[in-house]
């Protein structure tokens, strides 16, 4: 499988880009795009995985948290730049006008997450399917509420797609001096943010006392709580952090591609694939899942032959990446049902 992929990279007939040897810059850009996407996938899916790993709650509203977070960040940036519902140019945005909206979105969604966890999920712990159904119900409600109320500007139709702007200072290309590749600084910033989130999570989970309790809780919830640890507080913290990470992902995605009312389903799928492939509840699994998914997704868009399959009806623009993604999922599940880094049982 990997062998044939490598083969295609050096041969690659009928593709958009040609083989990697012929046009190394396209290959490099695809690679960088994959790492960028992987960083974003990691930010979002690590929150999903954290919540699942500790509480066995599959938060089906994770995509909705991301969606709402994206819209809140948009509203804040509009307010700070007096955009009035129009697209804000990156020249009008300084670093704070990006960071503050992201922080506001994270705080708001963290609060929402705490509310959801305390009111709807605390009293039925252990009933994981029921909790999944509750969060599905929640996602239906949030999705509808977002369409009904956002964007709040009367000049913009409710439920329209919106996007925030990167700060002007990073919204430019930089020459990497490798194979003549110029790459967006904003995308490099996403990679840096992903690495930072990963490091912070790793330090938190593996080097602090709270993290110790989290790891103990993942292993044996009842024993941890019997040892006098207030596991409920840890649960609440983990849910808050997980929800905040979804909102951070939403803020980034609002600048990266823009959010619209179907973003929630898209990102729920993304989070699910990442954690199913990587293994639930493991930071390293999430990294691996995010990288693998992003690589497969971007390379199948760029290097899958498009010419052969485009004959009937003269239709164009068919994108088979989703089929390849399914193959990835099926392969991992066939050989490791618990995911690459997941522990069985």
């Amino acid at each position, binding site marked *: 499988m990997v062998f044939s992929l490598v083969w295609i990279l050096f041969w690659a007939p009928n593709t958009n880009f040609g083989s990697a040897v012929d046009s190394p810059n396209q290959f490099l850009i695809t690679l960088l795009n994959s790492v960028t996407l992987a960083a974003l996938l990691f930010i979002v899916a690590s929150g999903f995985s954290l919540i699942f790993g500790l509480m*066995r709650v*599959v938060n*089906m509203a994770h995509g909705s948290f991301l969606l709402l977070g994206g819209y809140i960040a948009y509203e804040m940036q509009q307010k700070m730049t007096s955009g009035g519902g129009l697209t804000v140019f990156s020249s009008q945005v300084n670093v704070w006008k990006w960071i503050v909206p992201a922080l506001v979105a994270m705080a708001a969604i963290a609060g929402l997450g705490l509310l959801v966890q305390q009111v*709807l999920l605390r009293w039925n712990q252990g*009933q*994981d*399917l*029921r909790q*999944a*159904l*509750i969060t*599905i*119900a*929640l*996602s*239906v*409600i949030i*999705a*509808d*509420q977002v*369409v*009904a*109320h956002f964007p709040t500007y009367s000049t913009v139709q409710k439920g329209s797609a919106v996007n925030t702007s990167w700060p002007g200072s990073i919204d430019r290309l930089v020459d990497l001096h490798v194979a003549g590749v110029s790459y967006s600084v904003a995308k490099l910033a996403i990679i840096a943010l992903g690495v930072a989130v990963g490091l912070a999570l790793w330090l938190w989970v593996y080097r602090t006392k709270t993290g110790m309790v989290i790891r103990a809780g993942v292993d044996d919830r009842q024993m941890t709580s019997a040892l006098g640890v207030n596991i409920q507080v840890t649960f609440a913290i983990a849910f808050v952090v997980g929800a905040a990470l979804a909102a951070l992902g939403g803020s980034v995605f609002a600048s990266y591609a823009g959010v619209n009312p179907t973003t*929630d*389903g*898209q990102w*729920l*799928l993304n989070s*699910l*694939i990442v*954690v*199913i492939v990587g293994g639930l509840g493991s930071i390293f699994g999430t990294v691996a899942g995010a990288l693998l998914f992003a690589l497969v997704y971007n390379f199948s868009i760029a290097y899958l032959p498009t010419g052969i*399959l485009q004959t*009937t*009806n003269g*239709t*164009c*623009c*068919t*994108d*088979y*990446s*989703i*089929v390849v*993604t*399914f193959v990835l*999922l*099926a392969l991992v*599940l*066939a050989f490791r*049902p*618990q995911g690459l880094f997941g522990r*069985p*049982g």
Partner: protein
Amino acid sequence: MSRPTFLKRTSKKVAIERAIGTGVLVIVALGPLIVTDYWVSFILTQTFLFGIAAASLIFLSAYGGMISLAQAALYGIAAFALGNMVTSGSVKGLHLGIDPWLGVVLAIVITTAIGFVFGAVASRSTGIYFLMITLTYAVIAFYFFGQVTQVSGFSGIAGIQDHTPGLVGDPVTQPNRLYYIALVTALLVYLAIRYVVRTPFGIAFQGVRDDPVRMGSLGYNVSLHRTLAFTFAAFIASLAGVLYGWWNGVVAPDNVGLGATVDLLIIAVIGGLGRVEGAWLGAFAFIVINNYVRDVSVPVLGGSFNTVIGLIFLAIVIVSPDGLMGLWDRLVQAVLRGRGGGSPQAPVEVQTAVPEAGS
């Protein structure tokens, strides 16, 4: 039919339910004489076909402890397959224009085969993992039909209603035919599920639900049972898909999207995940609410029908996870116990049917 003695105590309840069931059947059989055309062609036909799709979901959850979110995708696949086969001329898709009956058979065969593959991939997972994997199937199906323009594209395939077999006729001008076909199919599906769960396969499948490890050590092939049950559910869902194709005439990626997936789940949860009858009850409740709450604006929150149905869904999951049928079971039990003839059976809990998460 000989029943073990411990089941005889519930016979009073069974008698009540049979009476209600027969009554409902008589009413719907006389349907077109009693209710308006709108109810026949819109509400009841839709109830039957969505009930069939929901029954495939409930079959898996009640007897296998597996909540599948792929059933909407599977019925959508059947409808897409039918659309690609039978339509002709300048419509989207492959428009092969083959014989309508052959198209129906192929749509069912293709969907069942895809169900086999889906089931095989997911067969080693249970509980929450199974839910997540089937959800990815659903979303993948949505993007597949949206992105692969040869078979659909985002606008979908229209004009299926012009290529129905002679027996079905034109669903627009002759809605009663489709009504009775959907009714008979729903009844057959119900009987087929009731039959299958009593076969040796069905009993073993329920054994797999209750204790996969023990069934494995007894020599049963656990994943094969799950795969075949999923395939059977895909077959049922494909029937709903064919009926949907005829009824709606158009099938678009939205019919397999996250919204449609969740709608089907809501139907099954409202009806009750523990009993197959709940499928049609849930479908009826959902469609009636959908139909009459459309124009009502939600106080305070704002929003549309989805907020209402989301809140109802939330309330049901919180109050009675086994839905209306579970509520009914407990009601009957309470009444019978009050008279001293109650059954010791516990209400069907969604959770008890599910083995330890993980695999």
